[in-house]
């Protein structure tokens, strides 16, 4: 798994992450990220088929809370943070496309 990172991969990933890059940045990041991934090839190459990922390092399980009401934030406080709000709701520019 030592194929270099291609420019198109970085462009695709930037789109997925909602980042827009200039042509220069695209080149620069392709090179820099490529170096990190080269370095990471040492673990990509390992045979770890019998190894299982660890969930919590100290094996915590079943952490739950009771179904009991707690105080919510006041709406004024919540909307005070909003870049744009209307009718008690957060306002955003039009959404193209339904939720996946």
């Amino acid at each position, binding site marked *: 798994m030592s194929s270099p990172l291609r420019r198109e991969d970085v462009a695709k990933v930037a789109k997925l992450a909602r980042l827009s890059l200039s042509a220069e940045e695209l080149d620069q990041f392709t090179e820099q990220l490529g170096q990190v991934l080269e370095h990471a090839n040492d673990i990509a190459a390992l045979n770890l088929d019998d190894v299982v990922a660890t*969930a919590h390092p100290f094996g915590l399980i*079943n952490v739950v809370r009771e*179904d009991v*009401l*707690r105080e919510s934030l006041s709406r004024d406080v*919540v909307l005070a943070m909003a870049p744009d709000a209307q009718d008690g709701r*957060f*306002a955003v520019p*039009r959404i193209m*496309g339904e939720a996946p």
Partner: protein
Amino acid sequence: MPEGWELVVGLEVHTELKTTTKMFCGCLNAFGSEANTNVCPVCLGLPGSLPVLNVHAVDLAMAIGFALHSTIASSTFHRKNYFYPDMPKDFQISQYDLPINSGGYLDLPDGSRVTIERAHLEEDTGKSTHLGGSGRIHGADRSLVDYNRSGVPLVEIVSGPDIRSSAQARAYASELRGILIATGASDGRMEEGSMRMDANVSVRRFGDPLGTRCEIKNLNSLRSLGRAIDYEALRQVELIEGGGKVRQETRHWDEGLGETSTMRVKEEAEDYRYFREPDLVDLVPDKAWQERIRSSLGALPAERRAVLLARLSKPLSPQLDALEVVVDLGFDSFVLAAIDAGIEAPLALARAANELAAAIENIANLTPESFIATLRMEQSGELSATQAKKVLLEILEHGGEPRAVASANGFEQLSSDSLGATVAELITRHPEEWERYREGDEKLAQFFIGQVMKVTSGQANGRAVIAELQSRR
């Protein structure tokens, strides 16, 4: 379906769980609150916030699993990553390859079985409303987001592609809804969005492999479900027969226009980059926990219908319909108690399916004892049907005790003397009808009952009238 074509449908049903608080925080889980008043750092996804799992949501998810004959296993939460403004963290905490419930099945009243692939836990998103345009998302200028619903616990139930008709789909959805209500997991209010359905629809010629499927999202009534499936099936058949190919896509059902349409087609499939949620730990429900849930499950709708059916002798179609309504609404305990107390089944069923159903929000005001007492008065002739219904409705609205309510309303028993006089008078006025009745035409009994009712403003008891008629034959 057109000749030679087979419909293949799988349903994904999302149900909101009837917990007091949300999945990962202590905000109120309720429909209809003012926008953004049930939110906190966790369900708003504020920087630094962390989720903590609601144990009641887990209990309800397991109850659903037991009701669907699923295997309950240790499970893990995963993040499903994508950007959308109604998702505060721009990822949804869900379950991926290790869901709490896997496998299972649902038997339908017609005897068919639909397999269940999985039923897993996840959190709901906020809700957006669109301004400008038609109020739908296309053509809107801007959107407004309310996060009250964000973080509400959901169980997503995925069926196998076993459904073969829109009627079967409706039956599945209806039976599933009944089960969700019976387990206490959901209130089943589709119109409030507490149960939402997505249908995966494909068609194939008999014997062919599965066709390309389209997903129709967010169907929120049984009627839409049926209509959308029928439309989509036909659309696909006509497309293929016309030489075209079905494109795998998500479609939107327009109830007004009665058609499905393409939602915006994406260039490539969304990559959700699922990975294990590091802010939560594994869920390992031990045998004791599972047993506690399993043993607290009451009888499910299918069993309850069977129990009630067994108490009916030679039920006619109206009784069978009433039976379904009664079980669906959870009134079977009233009806069974009434039957046990000697009330005739058809009467008990009718009153439960109609009068109780009409005042379902107030059902707590009525005890089985009051229900029985009222129906006893009707059955014995002390109250007419009209009067009995009035008494029930009044008890449901204001509470009270049947005899007291009846007297307060002045529902005097029509004395047999005055009834006799009334009947005699009507016999004189309608000699032809009386003659036909005397000769054996039983249908005329109804005619005379109707006349008595007119004269007495509904105060008479039908049986008592029949008794009078028969005694004068």
